[in-house]
């Protein structure tokens, strides 16, 4: 075990330095990453937990990590470097000839970087975006099918920018072989994509895996894959490396089974479970796209996430971003940092400047938490009323985006328990080309059709009227104010109107998870 500060894990280590895996698993499971809240509910750092909800050493690891902390994702940015093009398995939702739509592995369309280019790129981005705190390697293939390039990149970056957290995302097939190397480079966050724990189901997701110099197919392939994934997860847990599990929800294939997956990964110490919708369309050229396999609706996805949340932390803010994405989740500034541009940049790594900037972000974050807490009183009037609202934001936890400029809407659930982030919906730019304005607006309405209101910094007269007609109240009274605080103030006002008989509360319908928006850059 290297560089772990987990007291609990040290407790599980006997005098010979041998770790009792069962003990570690138990302790990690008890943590659930975040401890439990006082009302007997489960942990929730995938959604919005703060330092009070989890052990200090885990908070230290996740507090600046946009992918591991929903709270952090409003403030901190990540970047991926595409140094790992080779893959050792085939998934039915991925077509490497064009792109992997689900995990946004850019395959042939984006630049492949050498470790040296990647290191330069990280410095350039870190100098331009001081809130960039995390560097991930996520492909476009599998990082551990390209171990030399992956670990050389980590080595170079840890030399020049030691404050940047390193993470990687893998299918898990090669993971057990590389866990010690992962620990050596102080990679303290690993994501494993686990779509099944039953090879009978796995054979419908994975046509083949490359194992011991052979291409295995069907049941045999899926059996090896699941064994290796779970072994790798256990080995990470033994070493105190935080593991997030990604699962792609494929209706009719693994949707119900993901509850079993959730139990299997929780019992092995996974910190966070991220269930993502299948992105599937014929133009992706994937097996699922071509055979008409559909993705889940927003309601189906949320129901499954809610069901699993009874057991462990669920991540709801995943943007299924590309293997070369740069910026806050939900934004992609990779175009500013192409190889030509970064090689021409003179960069100086300003560690002190970055630290100062991040301290300012921390202060801003705390102000936001305080503002939210100030509106928690008086919510008991909600009774059983629960509703969703959509928010246009550019980050920082503030309602600061114009309706027509929003590339996505963040979704909050309002109830007697407060305001809870439950997801996001990507939409095509309503103001920009490609679609007629009416068609763009219809797309947005379909994407947020399950919401009672949409909070924006500004909105034009026409869309305002159309939204109202669709039963979604446009709210621009809280421009540039904190999201959760504003939503709760509005919610209490809504409840007062329901109480006085001015309004009748009605449930909303389902919403569509947009399949096209992720393709914006893939062509």
């Amino acid at each position, binding site marked *: 075990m290297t560089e772990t500060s987990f007291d609990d894990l040290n407790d599980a280590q006997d005098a010979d330095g041998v770790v009792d895996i069962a003990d570690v698993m138990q302790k990690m499971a008890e943590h659930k990453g975040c401890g439990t809240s006082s009302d007997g509910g489960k942990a929730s750092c995938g959604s919005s937990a703060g330092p009070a909800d989890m052990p200090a050493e885990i908070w230290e690891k996740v507090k600046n990590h946009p992918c591991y902390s929903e709270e952090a994702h409003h403030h901190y940015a990540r970047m991926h470097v595409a140094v790992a093009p080779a893959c050792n398995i085939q998934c039915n939702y991925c077509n490497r000839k064009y792109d992997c739509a689900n995990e946004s592995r850019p395959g042939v369309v984006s630049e492949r970087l050498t470790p040296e280019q990647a290191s330069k790129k990280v410095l350039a981005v870190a100098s331009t975006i001081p809130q960039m705190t995390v560097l991930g390697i996520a492909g476009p293939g599998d990082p551990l099918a390209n171990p030399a390039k992956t670990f050389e990149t980590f080595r170079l970056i840890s030399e020049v920018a030691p404050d940047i957290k390193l993470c990687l995302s893998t299918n898990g097939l090669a993971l057990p072989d590389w866990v010690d190397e992962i620990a050596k480079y102080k990679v303290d966050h690993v994501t494993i994509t686990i779509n099944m724990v039953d090879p009978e189901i796995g054979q419908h997701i994975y046509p083949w895996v490359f194992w011991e*110099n*052979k291409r295995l197919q069907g049941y045999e392939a899926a059996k090896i894959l699941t064994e290796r994934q779970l072994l790798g997860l256990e080995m990470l847990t033994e070493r105190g490396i935080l593991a997030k599990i990604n699962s792609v929800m494929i209706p009719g294939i693994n949707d119900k089974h993901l509850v079993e997956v959730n139990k299997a990964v929780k019992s092995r110490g996974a910190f966070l479970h991220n269930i993502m919708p299948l992105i599937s369309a014929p133009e992706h050229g994937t097996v699922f796209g071509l055979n008409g396999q559909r993705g889940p609706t927003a309601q189906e996805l949320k129901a499954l996430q809610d069901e699993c949340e009874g057991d462990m932390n669920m991540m709801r803010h995943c943007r299924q971003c590309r293997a070369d994405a740069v910026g806050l989740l939900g934004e992609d500034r990779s175009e500013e940092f192409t190889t030509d541009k970064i090689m021409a940049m003179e960069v100086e790594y300003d560690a002190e400047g970055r630290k100062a900037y991040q301290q300012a972000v921390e202060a801003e974050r705390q102000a936001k938490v305080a503002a939210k807490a100030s509106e928690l009183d008086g919510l008991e009037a909600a009774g059983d009323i629960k509703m969703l609202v959509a928010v246009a934001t550019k980050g920082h936890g503030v309602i600061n985006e114009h309706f027509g400029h929003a590339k996505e809407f963040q979704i909050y659930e309002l109830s007697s328990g407060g305001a809870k982030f439950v997801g996001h919906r990507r939409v095509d730019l309503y103001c920009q080309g490609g679609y007629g304005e009416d068609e763009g607006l219809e797309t947005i309405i379909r994407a947020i059709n399950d919401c009672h209101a949409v909070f924006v910094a500004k909105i034009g007269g026409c869309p305002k009227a159309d939204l109202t007609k669709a039963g979604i109240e446009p709210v621009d009274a809280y421009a540039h104010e904190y999201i959760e605080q504003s939503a709760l103030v509005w919610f209490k006002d809504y409840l007062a109107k329901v109480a006085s008989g001015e309004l009748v509360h009605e449930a909303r319908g389902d919403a569509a998870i947009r399949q096209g928006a992720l393709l914006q850059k893939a062509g």
Partner: protein
Amino acid sequence: MPFKIVASQCTNCTACEALCPNQAISEAGNTFVIDPALCTECIGHFDDPQCVAICPVDDTCVIDRSLPRYAP
């Protein structure tokens, strides 16, 4: 007959390069190529030709029928 790579299908993923037991595969412009003088069809090394087994696009690493068979 050695293997060849169909350039229009190759995604440049590099996976085959590292697996080739003969170092017969290298990058050439926008594709990877197999040196027919070095390719042994993996005979004597592995049961399956490695480039075929790992390639993410079907029918991309194929036998080059314009050349004589590899003779061990």
